[in-house]
């Protein structure tokens, strides 16, 4: 049992949290519900807010000092994740650049690549998208088929990606493709041949097709590559050996989204908003609301267990998967409770009630995808089960 851990630097985390909430209150419109609304103003809001964070040196807090960061540890990073997610991720698409694209370029990139990309990511003025999933390669990422054919000076890429967020507005794509002739087959590890390309999205032969979806505009897109030329110097890491980079990406995304933070915020906000009409809410629904508060607290505490172990340099993969399962299930359960409260006829009839109803509905739609995106809940359950079955100790600790 791993009870005793490094304690969080409470004063430091509190100070950062206050500072972020102040910035959010002053610089983010109250009706902001993320950049998936399909309104250009939402994307502009996110871009403007990122520049504010960059100016305050808060955008790349976790980056090493040599790249303009503050080398913030896991606890401060957690505060940033919580405050951003609870306010519908006002960094928009930037969170990808800051959280993992920048860090993997630092680790695997050439000096030229670092010089080209890191200053722009840290200034908050470049958008990236992630070219991973394909029609036949979702959870089974190693089965991807998009092909890179070596040609003079670089590669020609042909294939298709899907479910790519932000593709229509991204300037760069972090793209996975496999070398020609390395298609999975008998006696060959399907991870061999996979290569990471840093591709400009205005390259001829690159095409984006947005998908109309339940979860919102910009969220899901298709990307098509027809003989797209990428210069050799835009390969990240070793040609044909990109899999370790993918593993690094997953490690940077380890704790993932602080979904509990938005649940906490909305569960409290809806209660405050309803005010004295709370007594009109059916008792059964009030009970489900309090249960959701408990579940949200539990998910948060499970996240903190992972963060504490990160801080101490020994992460248990079972804890990570357990947290991710708990938090996505929470998100869906809490969003159902919130939707029911929003539909109980007790929100105020004015603009404020409309804003809250819209916020809640947005949360509900996004939570639907929580058990699918960034690794399905089935994959999490599978890796968790393997970890606990393989561990000779068994049980919780």
């Amino acid at each position, binding site marked *: 049992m791993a*009870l005793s851990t490094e304690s969080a630097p409470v004063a430091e985390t509190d100070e950062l949290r206050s500072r972020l909430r102040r910035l959010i209150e002053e610089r983010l419109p109250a009706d902001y519900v993320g950049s998936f609304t399909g309104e250009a103003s939402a994307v502009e809001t996110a871009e403007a807010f990122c520049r504010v964070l960059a100016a305050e040196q808060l955008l790349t807090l976790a980056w090493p000092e040599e790249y303009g960061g503050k080398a913030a540890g896991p606890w401060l990073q957690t505060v940033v994740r919580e405050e951003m997610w609870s306010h519908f991720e006002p960094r928009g698409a930037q969170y990808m650049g800051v959280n993992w694209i920048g860090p993997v370029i630092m680790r695997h990139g050439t000096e030229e690549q670092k010089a080209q990309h890191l200053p722009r990511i840290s200034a908050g003025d470049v958008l990236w998208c992630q070219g991973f999933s394909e029609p036949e390669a979702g959870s089974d990422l190693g089965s991807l088929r998009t092909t890179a054919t070596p040609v003079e000076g670089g590669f020609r890429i042909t294939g298709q990606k899907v479910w790519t967020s932000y593709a229509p507005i991204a300037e760069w794509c972090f793209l996975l493709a496999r070398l020609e002739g390395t298609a999975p087959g008998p006696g060959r590890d399907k991870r061999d041949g996979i290569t990471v390309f840093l591709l400009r999205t205005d390259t001829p032969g690159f095409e984006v097709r947005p998908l109309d979806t339940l979860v919102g505009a910009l969220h899901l897109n298709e990307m098509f590559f027809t003989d797209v030329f990428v210069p050799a110097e835009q390969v990240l890491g070793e040609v044909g050996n990109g899999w370790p980079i993918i593993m690094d990406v997953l490690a940077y995304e380890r704790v993932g989204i602080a979904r509990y933070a938005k649940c*906490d915020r909305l569960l409290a906000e809806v209660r405050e908003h309803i005010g004295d009409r709370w007594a009109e809410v059916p008792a059964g629904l009030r009970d489900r609301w309090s*249960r959701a508060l408990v579940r949200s607290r539990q998910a*948060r505490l499970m996240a*903190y267990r992972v963060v504490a172990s990160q801080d101490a340099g020994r992460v248990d993969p079972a804890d990570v998967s*357990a947290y991710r399962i*708990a938090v996505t299930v929470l998100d869906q359960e809490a969003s159902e409770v919130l939707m029911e409260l929003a539909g109980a006829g007790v929100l105020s009839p004015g603009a404020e009630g409309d804003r809250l109803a819209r916020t809640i509905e947005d949360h509900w739609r996004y939570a639907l995808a929580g058990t699918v995106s960034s690794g399905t809940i089935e994959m999490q359950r599978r890796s968790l089960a393997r970890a606990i*079955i393989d561990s000779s100790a068994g049980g*919780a600790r």
Partner: protein
Amino acid sequence: MTEGMRVELPGEGIEFGRGLAAALRKAGGVDLARAAHRDPGSRESVVLPILEGSGVLELDARDGLDELTAIAAACRAAGSVALPYPLAGRLAGALADAPGVAVVSAEAPAADHADLMTGWTAITPEGSRAAIAGPAATRSAVSSRFAGGLVVGPWSAGDPAPAVLLMLLQGWSVLGSLDHALSLTIRHSRDRVQFGHPISEYQGIQFQLADAFVELSALEVTCEDALSAYAANAASAVVDVLALRVATLEAAQKVLGVCHQVHGAIGFTDEHDLSWLTRYGHLVRRSPLGASGTLALLTAEIERGGFRSLFPVPAYSGAANG
């Protein structure tokens, strides 16, 4: 302004619990429960001396976080072997100036080991208390020989603190039981071969184990959090302990459900420890209130006093009137 981030419990207290767990395993582990079922006198002739020898009965929950942690960890150890003795009630007794306490509903007071509680104090979650005159002559729960009704004296109003502490310790005790039950289940899934493979290789089993582990982990962090909240301010921790109890009851149902399902018929036999963990974890899940009643109590408490969170839930002023 909002939440401190990580609960940190003193390692010494946790170590104390590990020591007691080792001593209980050495004395037979779950066999102590089997023996008590055959010979109820062994609870006082065999189990009690082990507890006395460990020093746990001298700990006082009012003496700060170190002792409280040791007490909670000891209850976890007791739960892990379905210890046939009301240890948590005994340890919470000091808060009521009584040899022990049982947390009960006034309508149907009941406890495990009711026959050992004569002279103890019965307390409701709200703090009403009554002297325990002895075990009721009512029918015991079928699943546990020792779960039974209590004959109590007249009720009077009082401080709920002993009941809150006892519910906190019961959470830790159930945590110990579920942890052990899931360990047994994971081991069984590796050993049990059907259709030519250990059943742990089947995804239908794996997913159940994963979900049970998630529940157990969630309960463990909630136990730590409630303990820390209680140590910081016992009076305001009522809501945290009720939240823990909601989590405890939900986890018990889910984890034990998975454990029995994965074990199949063998898990119901008394030669298997799982049967005893279920038997002796039964009454605490129903009394003083079951899952629905506890949740309603939690809702009322949140409405009365608010709830700690990243975005704290304020108290509901209308609650006083409604």
